[in-house]
């Protein structure tokens, strides 16, 4: 696959706002989920890793006369960070593309209005307006796409944007994901018994499920030629290859043999123009859900081979929780930072590593990145899988 340059990063999550805060937090912070501040959240475990209120800007608060919710505002904030990082500000009118992943869109706004009737009596607009909000805030005029593949939406958004660039439909694309607290989503996960009461602890023997989180992450993607012409090379990182697949198995459970997630990983590695030996770190999907972590661990061993036992994984959700449609994008930002800084941050320590998940999660301190590439996985309800390979510096 043709390498696509990643020239800017932006992120908001429970650690705060900005990539510097994020990177420091990956190494040092140990946040815990907290009760949501929603009096109508009638469920056994109303907990979440929330973005600090001060980190979410008040604007934009409207799109064409309709109010915008927290997910849209977080997405715009992350986008502005990414564009500043890429030195691509003030580009209103440019035919650049936007591809954003979101599982719930601005559902939180609709839920709020259901309890507190709209002050002006107006009907609320569509839920999935995060991409629209980005397009209006930035003034860009290229394709503007909203991907809603649940927990893999951010990863799919990144690779759809890469497809756009490779196809010549855009020179620049902003890609990422955003999801905020939703009462409905959290209630449904409670009903399914899929929430860990303590914290998000993937690959721990005592994990009980996942813990939702708020977050937004955005990446600026460019064709290598465009980045070169404006002096943006070397970029922060390269997107070298990606692979998609679908389990076609079960609405919520992964296919036990992991055949399709293996296929996505292998396609991503093959697309990178290298092989599994070049992988120096994996950011797994790793949600803390019992079967998912086992299936992913085994699939990693099948794809990487015996070296998997000493290949560092960075378990992002153990720190920031499960940001839903943003998760793949947060993982992409993390992978890009790891590739650029050539170091894997220390993992949040496990209480009791699961022997059925034989993966290495170094937690004593930063681990040098010894391979050239970082493999990122993002999976979702419905068996919608995406994997991609990132690299820093020279793409090959």
């Amino acid at each position, binding site marked *: 696959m043709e390498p696509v340059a990643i020239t800017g990063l932006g992120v908001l999550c429970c650690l705060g706002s900005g990539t510097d805060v994020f990177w420091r937090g990956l190494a040092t912070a140990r946040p815990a989920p907290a009760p949501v501040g929603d009096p*109508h959240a009638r469920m056994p475990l109303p907990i979440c890793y929330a973005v600090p209120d001060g980190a979410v800007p008040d604007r934009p608060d409207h799109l064409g006369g309709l109010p915008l919710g927290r997910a849209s505002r977080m997405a715009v904030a992350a986008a502005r960070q990414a564009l500043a990082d890429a030195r691509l500000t003030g580009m209103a009118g440019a*035919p650049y593309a936007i591809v954003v992943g979101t*599982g719930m869109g601005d559902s939180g706004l609709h839920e709020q209005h259901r309890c507190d009737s709209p002050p002006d009596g107006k009907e609320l607009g*569509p839920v999935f307006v995060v991409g629209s909000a980005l397009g209006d805030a930035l003034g860009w*005029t290229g394709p503007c796409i909203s991907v809603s593949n*649940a927990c893999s939406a951010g990863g799919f958004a990144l690779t759809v944007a890469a497809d756009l660039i490779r196809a010549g439909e855009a020179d620049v694309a902003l890609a990422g994901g955003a999801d905020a607290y939703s009462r409905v989503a959290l209630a449904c996960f409670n009903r399914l018994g899929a929430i860990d009461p303590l914290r998000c602890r993937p690959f721990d023997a005592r994990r009980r499920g996942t813990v939702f989180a708020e977050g937004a992450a955005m990446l600026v993607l460019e064709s290598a030629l465009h980045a070169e012409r404006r002096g943006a090379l070397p970029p922060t990182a390269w997107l070298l290859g990606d692979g998609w697949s*679908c389990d076609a198995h079960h609405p919520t459970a992964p296919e036990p043999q992991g055949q399709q997630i293996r296929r996505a990983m292998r396609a991503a590695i093959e697309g990178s123009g290298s092989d599994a030996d070049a992988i120096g770190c994996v950011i797994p999907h790793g949600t803390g859900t019992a079967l998912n972590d086992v299936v992913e661990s085994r699939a990693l061993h099948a794809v990487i081979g015996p070296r998997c036992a000493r290949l560092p994984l960075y378990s992002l959700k153990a720190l920031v929780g499960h940001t839903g449609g943003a998760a793949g994008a947060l993982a992409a930002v993390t992978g890009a930072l790891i590739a650029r800084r050539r170091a894997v941050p220390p993992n949040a320590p496990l209480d009791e590593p699961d022997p059925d998940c034989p993966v290495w999660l170094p937690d004593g301190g930063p681990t040098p990145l010894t391979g050239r590439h970082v493999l990122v996985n993002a999976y979702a309800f419905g068996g919608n899988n995406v994997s991609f390979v990132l690299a820093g510096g020279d793409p090959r």
Partner: protein
Amino acid sequence: MSAPADLVVTGIGVVSPLAAMAALAAPPRAGNAAPAPAADAWFDADARLGPRGHKYLPPAARYLLAAAGDALADAGDCLAGIPEERRGAAVGTNHAVAALHARMDRTVISEGADGLSPATAPFFSVNLFGSHLSGRFALKAFNVTVTSPGVAGLEAVQMGLRAVTAGRSALLLAAATEEAREGGTHTDSGAVALVFERRQAATARPVRRHGSCRVRSAFVPPSLLREASGRAQARDRLVAHLAEPGADAPPTHLVLDDSPVAAVAAQAVGATGAAVTYEAVGSGSLRPMLRLAGLLAVARGPARLVSAIAQGHVAWAETRPEDARADGSAPC
């Protein structure tokens, strides 16, 4: 507009109360006016999907399965020669989950999460509507759900065709599905599905090739339109997309709301000199896809469909029937 890699539509499936209402619209007997149909009365799930396997599916998932089944049946034996890992799906929707979310939320507020049905709970995630297609028809190459206001169905076609061209699959099932929002009109409910495959594969068996289809999209920032200069810029950009120097613009069907964005799109189409027809977009992503299916099914020459909506999304599809055979019969 660059062509997707030699793909043709061989299957069309439409599930819509508009079709059912055509029967209802027959002149009523004197003194016996036809009653308004109930919200879901137009769709007989058992008749369309069989007696089992759909009890817990929300309406939009049922419509989608039925439309996909019809499209694949229309396409003949198209899956037989395509490995499961080479079959992709792209689904667009805006409101498939809206009414369900509202019902779920009221349950949580009044009874708590324990009042939710565990069978229905996974459908809080909008991608499950499309993911059922993969389970039913073994579509393992990919399954992507897209949700941009108004244009999500066209967006699914565009994104899916791009994915096929990139080599991610050999066959695409592209679709839109909606359940009308609470308080909305039931004519915004239904589903449309289209099967795309390589022309060479379609030519190898006796199946009708409905035509080819290309979709592109752009964004018109609504805030840009507050000033006359911004409206002129936006119109000119769209004209640049839509006008082909030296070529007559194809007859164009507009599917629009009443927003400034739609007005700019209509002006741009007008500037191309195309013969124009119009209909309201309604609520959700279904109406443009219904019209696209109609163009593919009956248009005798190149045609264009342009859809635009208040939130800034503009998408256009161009359809072209397969060349008629020398004897004048339909290509197959």
